[in-house]
């Protein structure tokens, strides 16, 4: 996945692969700019070309190669089979249309509902995501809603057709803690009821721990580690993951023990040679400067992966073993 910009070609996502089974929740974590959103926009074929370009790869859903779909086939997938909650609720809703209009057009299209039916359905959805006085508020425009309420409208929109896959790009960032818990609960119950698979993009490792079955960690547009949530938290194998875990507040640690990861996020136009994380890595060795670490797959159920030249299996956030 590349962007052809005036200052050069940005490899926004490279060598990233993941799979997803029904009813599963996959977390994607990584710092800002690591390519989480671009990866998932590419899954839905929503990267504007140009400047974007999918230089190679494959996205398969239900035995279908999505990258080869034509416009009409895409329309059958988007919103119906795979739906997405976008990151920024302030700009993702159309300011010129009422919330009702934006909600009902999806169900009228994919579920074949009539206007009144779709409208009732939409009110129920808004109630589900916790919007008070939904029958009245539904006729409002997005600018009359707060950021958190817009986020909930986005969520209602995405779940309105009970998609097989729900891509949630930081869906709860704009919400306060109680609402956040409600939304997570809602997504979980939908998952249990309909077997929805969820891709959960977030900065919040606490949310990952409580919601995700597996986690993929991204750095500079690449997958650096993937494991079950339990494994990842107990035994991280990539220094970046270790850094992330150490920099996240945890209930069993006091604030003084928090350590931010040193250094700046990498410039995608000018990635360091070798392992792109090496300038910030506390375990760096000579070979890390030359060799691009391959993605190592370890046997297990499910198998876990990491991309680091060093064996950090015995360390836990401290010195290498």
């Amino acid at each position: 996945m590349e962007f052809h910009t005036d200052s050069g070609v940005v490899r926004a996502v490279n060598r990233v692969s993941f799979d997803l089974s029904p009813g599963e929740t996959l977390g994607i974590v990584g710092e800002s700019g690591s390519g989480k959103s671009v990866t998932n926009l590419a899954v839905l074929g929503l990267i504007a070309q140009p400047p974007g370009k999918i230089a190679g790869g494959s996205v398969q859903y239900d035995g279908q190669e999505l990258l080869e779909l034509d416009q009409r086939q895409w329309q059958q997938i988007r919103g119906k089979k795979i739906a997405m909650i976008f990151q920024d609720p302030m700009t993702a809703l159309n300011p010129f249309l009422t919330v009702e209009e934006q909600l009902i057009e999806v169900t009228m299209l994919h579920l074949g509902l009539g206007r009144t039916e779709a409208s009732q359905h939409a009110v129920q959805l808004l109630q589900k995501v916790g919007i008070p006085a939904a029958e009245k508020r539904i006729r409002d425009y997005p600018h009359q809603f707060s950021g958190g309420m817009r986020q909930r409208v986005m969520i209602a929109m995405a779940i309105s057709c009970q998609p097989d896959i729900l891509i949630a790009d930081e869906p709860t960032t704009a919400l306060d803690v109680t609402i956040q818990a409600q939304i997570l609960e809602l997504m979980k119950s939908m998952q249990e009821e309909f077997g929805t698979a969820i891709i959960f993009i977030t900065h919040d490792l606490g949310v990952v721990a409580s919601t995700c079955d597996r986690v993929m960690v991204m750095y500079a547009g690449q997958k650096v580690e993937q494991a079950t949530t339990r494994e990842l938290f107990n035994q991280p194998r990539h220094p970046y993951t270790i850094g992330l875990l150490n920099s996240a507040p945890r209930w069993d640690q006091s604030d003084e023990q928090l350590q931010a990861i040193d250094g700046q996020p990498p410039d995608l136009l000018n990635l360091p040679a070798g392992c792109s994380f090496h300038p910030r890595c506390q375990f760096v060795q000579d070979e890390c400067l030359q060799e691009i670490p391959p993605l190592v797959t370890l046997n297990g159920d499910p198998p876990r992966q990491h991309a680091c030249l060093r064996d950090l299996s015995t360390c836990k956030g401290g010195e290498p073993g």
Partner: protein
Amino acid sequence: MQVLMFLLKRFGWMIVTVWIVFTISFFLMRHIPGGPLNGERVLSEAVRARLEARYNLDAPLSEQYFTHLWNTMRLDFGPSFKLQDYTVNEVLAQGLPVSAALGILGMVFAISIGMTSGVISAVRRNSVYDYSFMLLATLGIAIPNFVLAAMLIVIFVFNLQMFPAAGWGDLNQIILPAFCLGAPFAGYIARLTRTGMLEVLGNDYIRTAYAKGLSPRTVVLKHGLRGALLPVVSYLGPAIAGILTGSLVLERIFVIPGMGSHFIEAAIQRDYTLAMGALLTYTVLLFVMNTMVDLAYSIIDPRVKLE
């Protein structure tokens, strides 16, 4: 309620504006050397006195002002100086509908041609359509409408013989002048629509619309067009003013019996009453049009508050 308050406020402003326009032009007209009775013919003293009495020109200026103002408030513009058998109201009643028909059709041409080509240009950016529409738009803006009129008359009237050269009363006779009138505005509107549409299509909410599985057609026309319409609607105010002045020229070329000829003649021949009547009518017209534009803007964009 809000709309009513807005309309009332606008109406108040309109009255004030009309009064100011009236006052300024009343004194300006009488300050310019020459008067309505200094024509080609030399009038005898007796005739002049009788005419001055008839038009109230023998009264002191302040009295003339207040009489004229009072009559104007009663929507009575008085007798025309030059078209001596008619009142100004009669002249307006005859000329206005003609000019209005021409102006409205010109505007319809401008909006429909401009918006359609603008949307196509934006959606098919950098295609042959885009380049040809934008070239035409530039030509439409650059070529003065009397030149365009001359060219079209040569092509369609003399060579193809599709339309009559001039006159009024037939649908055939209105198409060519209305097209010439609308052409530059169609060009502007096409460019504004293209730019607006391109900007709107880059918005996040357009991506959301695609993510819902809507067809490109629905995305562009339902989710994109409204935003792209806003710059066009803002431009309609100045465009309407431009159409009014543009029609003065085109009515002359195509010999159309609208307001245009009266307006120009009245100004040249110091026909005080007719000039005043035409001027005030145009002022009111512009005000009403601009109010409608503002109203339309607030309907399209719910975030905009009328004030």
